[in-house]
């Protein structure tokens, strides 16, 4: 946990923590090997149904397909609106995809088999041990969003590739390499979980310092060494912690805790081991850009753009891909670069490298991006959420009626006040972005005077981007 004297908005104590694991039953549950195995197994069953529905659904209407609806309405929206901002990488905790490679590596599903893990166990190259591969993987995945979110079989193909990829990568590389550096949805979860209100951290450094060997890293008979290759005894950022709960089991001193915390604390962490980086900055740009493009394509009224996204003609589709790529990888970062440059110029500081100003301030886009994605998700969930009730009762469109909700018609909910909800979300997350922007400014520029001046361009950028999204949502 980093010690900071800074207070968010000048009032919120960023060192405040509330330990959830201090309650005995909570700790007992989390230390059981059924946790998270049992939720994973239940989730695995869910995804078997999703895959079956997506496969049998073929090219039929996605809005009546269990696979499409659960993945793109329920899961995606839950991820953006609750799981990531609230519970960090809780999705990774219950994600069923790596269970097969875990099983192959450990040769046990439930028990702990001490000793070396199976599989080839190669190390992932250091140069790629960052978000770049995931940035590209996610961007490429979004090229196909016009198919995946509406064609059941396209969702099947995506999930199939992820499942097989996770398994094969798990056989070749050590531990959760796939989750850490390859999974398309891992990247933004890692990035945005820095904002989460929950964290897994060690409690007392004194205990860890004298504990050898560090069982949280190497494992013992109670559990495996951190599958996510973290050092639970001293990591400070949520980014790459998959919340698999192994360290809670392997720590003989119960020195690992799950804490509630003020949102966004990790944004201020910049250490040698967990530095801020251009990879995460670009992840933030890509997420922001995708939100804009997706809004234009899926919630805007422009038919020609929809035709491009759904690939009516090949030139149109390639045009969309080109625009999408350039917009996300170059234009958004380019615009931000201008403001970062202005920030440096205005601050009068000549020592701080421009790259550092650019990278560090990019972290203000984490709360911003989370906010716009929440707003976007509201626009998907409220009009289309009622489909979920239907597909729960008739998951394969075979005429079933499991829970008596198969006849519920499409019913938009609260769409009249949707604009207010989206506007309110934007303002809240704009405030967080500004709050952390100021704290980051103080980190970047040694001198408070410089920080003040250097902060102004960033504040301007954040205001403008918020106004852009406001215009998109309600304008």
């Amino acid at each position, binding site marked *: 946990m980093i010690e900071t004297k800074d207070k968010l908005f000048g009032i919120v104590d960023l060192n405040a923590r509330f330990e959830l694991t201090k309650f005995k039953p909570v700790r007992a549950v989390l230390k059981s090997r059924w946790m998270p195995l049992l939720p994973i197994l239940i989730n695995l069953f869910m995804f078997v149904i999703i895959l079956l529905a997506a496969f049998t659904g073929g*090219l039929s209407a996605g809005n009546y397909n269990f696979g499409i609806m659960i993945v793109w309405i329920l899961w995606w929206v839950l991820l953006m609106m609750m799981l990531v901002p609230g519970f960090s990488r809780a999705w990774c905790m219950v994600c069923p995809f790596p269970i097969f490679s875990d099983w192959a590596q450990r040769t046990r599903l439930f028990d702990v088999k001490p000793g070396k893990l199976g*599989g080839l166990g190669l190390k992932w190259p250091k140069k790629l041990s960052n978000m770049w591969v995931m940035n590209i993987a996610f961007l490429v995945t979004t090229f196909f969003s016009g198919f995946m979110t509406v064609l059941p079989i396209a969702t099947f193909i995506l999930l199939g590739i992820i499942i*097989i990829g996770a*398994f094969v990568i798990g056989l070749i590389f050590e531990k959760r390499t796939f989750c850490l550096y390859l999974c398309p949805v891992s990247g933004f979860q890692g990035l945005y979980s820095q904002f989460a209100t929950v964290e897994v951290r060690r409690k007392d450094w004194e205990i860890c310092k004298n504990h050898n060997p560090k069982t949280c890293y190497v494992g013992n008979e109670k559990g495996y060494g951190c599958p996510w290759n973290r050092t639970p005894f001293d990591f400070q950022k949520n980014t790459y912690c998959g919340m698999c709960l192994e360290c809670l089991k392997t720590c003989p001193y119960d020195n690992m805790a799950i804490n509630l915390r003020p949102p966004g604390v990790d944004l201020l962490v910049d250490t040698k081991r967990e530095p801020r980086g251009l990879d995460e900055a670009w992840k933030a740009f890509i997420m922001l850009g995708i939100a804009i493009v997706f809004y234009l394509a899926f919630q805007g009224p422009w038919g020609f753009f929809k035709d491009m996204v759904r690939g009516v003609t090949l030139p149109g589709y390639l045009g969309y891909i080109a625009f999408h790529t350039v917009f996300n990888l170059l234009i958004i970062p380019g615009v931000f670069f201008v403001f970062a440059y202005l920030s440096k110029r205005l601050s009068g500081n000549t020592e701080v490298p421009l790259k550092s100003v650019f990278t560090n301030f990019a972290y203000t886009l984490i709360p911003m991006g989370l906010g716009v994605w929440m707003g976007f998700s509201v626009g998907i969930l409220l009009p289309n959420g009622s489909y979920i009730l239907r597909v729960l009762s008739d998951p394969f469109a075979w005429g079933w009626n499991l829970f008596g909700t198969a006849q519920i018609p499409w019913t938009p909910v609260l769409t009249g006040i949707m604009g207010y909800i989206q506007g309110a979300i934007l303002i809240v997350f704009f405030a967080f972005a500004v709050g952390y922007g100021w704290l980051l400014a103080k980190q970047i520029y040694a001198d408070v005077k410089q920080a003040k001046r250097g902060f102004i361009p960033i504040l301007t950028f954040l205001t403008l981007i918020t106004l852009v999204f406001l215009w998109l949502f309600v304008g």
Partner: protein
Amino acid sequence: MKITKPIVIAITLVLTIAFVALVYFGMTRARGAPVAVPPLQRATLVSHYKTQSLDLTQDVALADWADIPGTAVELVYQAMIPPWSKGLIPAVTAKSFHNDTELYVYVTWKDESENRALGVGEFSDAVALMFPLSNDAPPSTLMMGFMGKQGVNVWHWQATQDTEFWSKKSVSADAYSDFLYPFEEQETLTIAKSPLTSAVSDLLAVKVTTTTAKATQNVQGRGVWDKGAWHVVFKRALKATNAKEDAAFAHGARKLMAFAAWSGDKGDRGGRKSISDWVQLEFR
């Protein structure tokens, strides 16, 4: 079992091939059981050039049409807009020719009974031709000419009107109705009519429920019922009198058209009819 390199390669290959095969299988059945879809085959009605012209004031002479090849046009129940047809006329046979100034279309179909009069529960046999007014109209929706704003020109021949016009006989009982009407089971209202100028109503429509009589009636027609079949001849000037209201024809051109037929004794009237798909009319 220790996982070695060859095993990983083998697993990867097997999984990839199995997945690709599964996706391929899924794609072939993505819209249900795969069947070969026959290519679209639109019936073509050829209108040959002839120097002949017909006089409709005389009765329809079947001999005039005997050696012109006919096109069989399949009809189906009109089952899109209620009320739906009650009986089906499965097909009509159409023939056509044109001379320098006139177009002739001949339609024949089997009908066991000749219904030339109207009354309560008694309806007229009829046949209609429909042409889109726009020459480049796409062969999309044919429901009463919903083909963009220009709409369609409909030539509606009715046996009752034929009797009235050619035989100068009154066909109506005191009350009748021949179109969609909310009280159709108790049809008792008389409907005012303008004096007849033809056995064929020359109509305009832009969509369902918009059929409107044109101000100028340009189409003549005459029908004869013979040995269990109707033979109806339509005649119109090749040139359109008013391009906005009349279908335009020209030697060497192509035009979309559609057919509809009514069987009075089965209760057909108004929207209750048998209809065809688009037919290509070709002038040679």
